[in-house]
């Protein structure tokens, strides 16, 4: 008989023990790891699809992919990266970190937590299995505009719809769990305005999720009934409106893009003060700025539809609201710079990724502001300029955010320092490759290359080649990342409890690696200085 945390369980074969541990776990740290590993696996699958896309676009002409298969890759790459990589990645970080940062023993609803994770592997199995079906996988873009996805969608569209429903259920349950945990399980003395910024940004993100995932569920349900039950929500021939789809989709979709970035803001707001050895500048304004961005995200969906035929008044409204988002976003960037100002900085890998995040995300913000100007958007819309824009906010934005968080907290999770030299190599190759891949896309777009095309006119050839070479490097460098993570888990220099000398917060008072169960008694907050020093 073995004894784990006071529970006596019968002896099992190692396989059964393994399965029981990971399938039945209700522990926030184990579930956090599951989320992060799922995200990592899907990162390589979605990344492999991106490689195929870039291989086909290396030169003009049809070389390797049939147009229909190319469209499937474009669609699945988007869906997997958005729903399978960034969202589970952030939820994994939330699972690991939020209880440790607010001094809670676990998430508020541990069984729900297990359920919301284990939905996901089934959702993605359903989605990716469509690649092997008659007629192929969904081929209508991750935005699945009707009627391309309804009347003209392949048979596998129904699997896609079911997959999206499952992901939505998982996200809503996960978000409810995070909200309940944050509201109820903070240690004494941690008022809302004393919460770490990562917790704040996740609280706001969770509210966005609860509000918009049902809208997405509505959109796919309307698709399903249009396809099979004789309704005509999106079918003009039956009295419906294809643009209704876009309104519903982007009412979900715009808050969704902030879901993909707000936790990243939180991560940068944790890491920059640690390595600048200086408190975060303008904590209160950071919280309000995040909340303003979230609220504004509900009234800007029309900026995805400027060329779709909106009336003038709607175009002006959406343009002004979109431009307004630049203000709170600017405040955040200025606050990060002010945090660095007259600090005492060192540049370990998490800091490098966080700084890369701030700079390159800001570049993506600039092109976002340009896209908000309706007349100019008529030229940018649906070109590679847009592809450049959203990859700048998603790759060096969301993905770099997740990577800096992994480097930052990995020693806490596994007890070992990662290889700093390799970490730095990873950062520098990634930042060169990410710019080489996505910066030329601005030029290709301005020159007039539409997005989502399998073949292009010869005037766009040079920069597409540069971009494809960059993409290959970017893909390779993430294999290095995988190696670094595995190497750290398997061994390495032992981490101290505080890990980083400038780190503050409850999670750094715990031993490294953090034991399976932590804070069974609520800790003192703020943690006294000696709490960081114990062995």
């Amino acid at each position, binding site marked *: 008989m073995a004894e784990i945390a006071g529970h006596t369980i019968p002896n099992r074969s190692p396989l059964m023990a393994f399965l029981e541990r990971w399938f039945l776990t209700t522990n926030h740290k184990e579930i956090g790891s599951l989320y992060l590993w799922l995200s990592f696996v899907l990162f390589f699958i979605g990344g492999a699809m991106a490689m195929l896309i870039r291989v086909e676009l290396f030169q003009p002409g049809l070389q390797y992919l049939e147009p229909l298969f190319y469209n499937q890759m474009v669609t699945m790459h988007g869906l997997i990266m958005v729903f399978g990589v960034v969202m589970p990645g952030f939820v994994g970080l939330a699972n690991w970190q939020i209880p440790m940062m607010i001094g809670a023993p676990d998430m508020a609803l541990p069984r729900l937590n297990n359920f919301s994770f284990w939905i996901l592997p089934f959702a993605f199995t359903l989605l990716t299995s469509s690649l092997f079906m*008659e007629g192929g996988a969904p081929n209508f873009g991750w935005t699945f505009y009707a009627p391309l996805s309804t009347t003209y969608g392949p048979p596998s569209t129904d699997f896609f719809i079911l997959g999206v429903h499952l992901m939505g259920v998982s996200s809503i349950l996960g978000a409810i769990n995070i909200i309940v945990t944050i509201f109820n399980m903070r240690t004494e003395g941690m008022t809302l305005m004393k919460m770490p910024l990562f917790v704040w940004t996740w609280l706001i993100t969770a509210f966005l999720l609860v509000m918009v995932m049902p809208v997405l569920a509505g959109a796919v349900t309307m698709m399903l009934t249009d396809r099979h039950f004789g309704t005509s929500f999106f079918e003009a021939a039956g009295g419906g409106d294809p643009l209704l789809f876009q309104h519903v989709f982007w009412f979900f979709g715009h808050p969704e893009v902030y879901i993909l970035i707000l936790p990243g803001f939180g991560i940068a707001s944790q890491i920059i003060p640690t390595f600048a050895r200086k*408190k975060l500048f303008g904590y209160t304004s950071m919280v309000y700025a995040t909340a303003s961005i979230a609220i504004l995200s509900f009234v800007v969906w029309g900026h995805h539809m400027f*060329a779709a035929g909106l009336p003038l008044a709607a175009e002006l409204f959406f343009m002004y609201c979109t431009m307004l988002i630049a*203000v709170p976003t600017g405040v955040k960037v200025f606050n990060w710079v002010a945090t660095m*100002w*007259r600090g005492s900085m060192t540049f370990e890998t998490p800091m490098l990724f966080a700084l890369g995040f701030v700079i390159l995300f800001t570049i993506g913000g600039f092109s976002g502001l340009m896209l908000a100007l309706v007349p100019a958007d008529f030229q940018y819309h649906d070109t590679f300029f847009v592809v450049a824009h959203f990859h700048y906010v998603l790759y060096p934005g969301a993905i770099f955010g997740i990577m800096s968080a992994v480097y930052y907290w990995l020693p806490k999770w596994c007890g070992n320092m990662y290889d700093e030299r390799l970490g730095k190599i990873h950062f520098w190759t990634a930042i060169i490759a990410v710019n080489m891949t996505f910066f030329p896309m601005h030029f290709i777009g301005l020159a007039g290359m539409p997005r989502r095309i399998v073949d292009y006119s010869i005037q766009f050839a040079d920069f597409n080649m540069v971009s494809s070479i960059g993409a290959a490097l970017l893909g390779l460098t993430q294999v290095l990342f995988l190696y670094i993570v595995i190497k750290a888990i398997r061994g390495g220099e032992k981490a101290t409890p505080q890990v980083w000398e400038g780190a503050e917060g409850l999670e750094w008072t715990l031993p490294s690696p953090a034991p399976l169960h932590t804070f069974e008694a609520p800790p003192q907050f703020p943690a006294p200085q000696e709490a960081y020093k114990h062995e």
Partner: protein
Amino acid sequence: MDNGKHVTSITSMLQRGLTFLLFMAFSAANFAADLDLRPGVTDMSQRIQSLHHTSLIICSVIGVVVFGLMFYSMYAHRRTKNPTPADFHESTIVEVIWTLIPVLILVSLAVPATTALIEIEDNSDPDLTVLITGSQWKWHYQYLESDINFYSNLATSQEQRDNLEPKGVNYLLEVDNVLVLPTNKKVRFLTTSDDVIHSWWIPDFAVKQDAVPGFINEAWTRVDEPGVFRGQCAEFCGKDHAFMPIVVEVQAEADFDQWLEDQRLAIELASGQAVADRAKTWAMAELMEIGEQVYVDHCATCHELDGAGQGSTYPALAGGEIPNGPMEAHIEQVMNGKADTEMQAWAPQLSDLEIASVITYERNSFGNETADLVQPITIYESR
């Protein structure tokens, strides 16, 4: 060495240097132009380019200042230079300042954007209206003031796309029938679609308008100088989204009037030809020859040159049910398409002779051996 020579050599060096510098500046400018949004050929496209420049410059200046401060801080406030960090972390005044300044900058961008947009959306009083209908994967143009209408298909050969032939200068940006417009007229475009959403875009006019099935959108342009302008479908519309280009030829007014006249004559000629085609009884060999060409031009993109199709989405014609089944069903499907699939109605797009020959071709190729033969008169009567 005498002085004069010396001076000459200096001047020539200066000259060469200047030429070189000019050359460098010129190629830099050229290079920069390649990287930039094109100015286009209309007042509006040029205003949009300058709006693009304004926003780009504002963003660049902000970027230089913010990133400059960041890099300075990374240099000057690193631990080895600044071992003791300062401990300030709040300042309401600073926060208010860096909230208000961006607002002012945004207002300065919103003003020109708003005035331009109001003008773009003013579709009133056009001199000429063209109804543009997108379908998978071609454009249909109708001049609403006359009965001229035609389809515009990609003209780049499959061989060029498959890298079997060298690619032309206008690879993927060339069509069989170009849209012809007059100079100095306000031309209104009405866009709609037969199937999925497409988007009609000519960068040089800065006109991009989605074509939505069941709805009609508006846009307009006015071009001062004749020329040929190329664009592409901008909204993801399925398999051949990359292969539905747009070419517009703007002609001086007199030339345009002549073109209209030629089109009218051509329509009359074609209807005369159609009557003659109907009257004639065609031989198998003739129909097969015409049919093969029609098949290659319009059908092979989905059903493949050898009739093998592509999975269940684009069914095989070789041994297929329709080409080997009853003739009436085959004619019906080719003429009226198949609901809820990408199979289009070809009756409005092809002549009686073309439809008759392609059906004949499909029933007697790819191993199909029905020996059936369809005469144009049959198609005429089925219309």
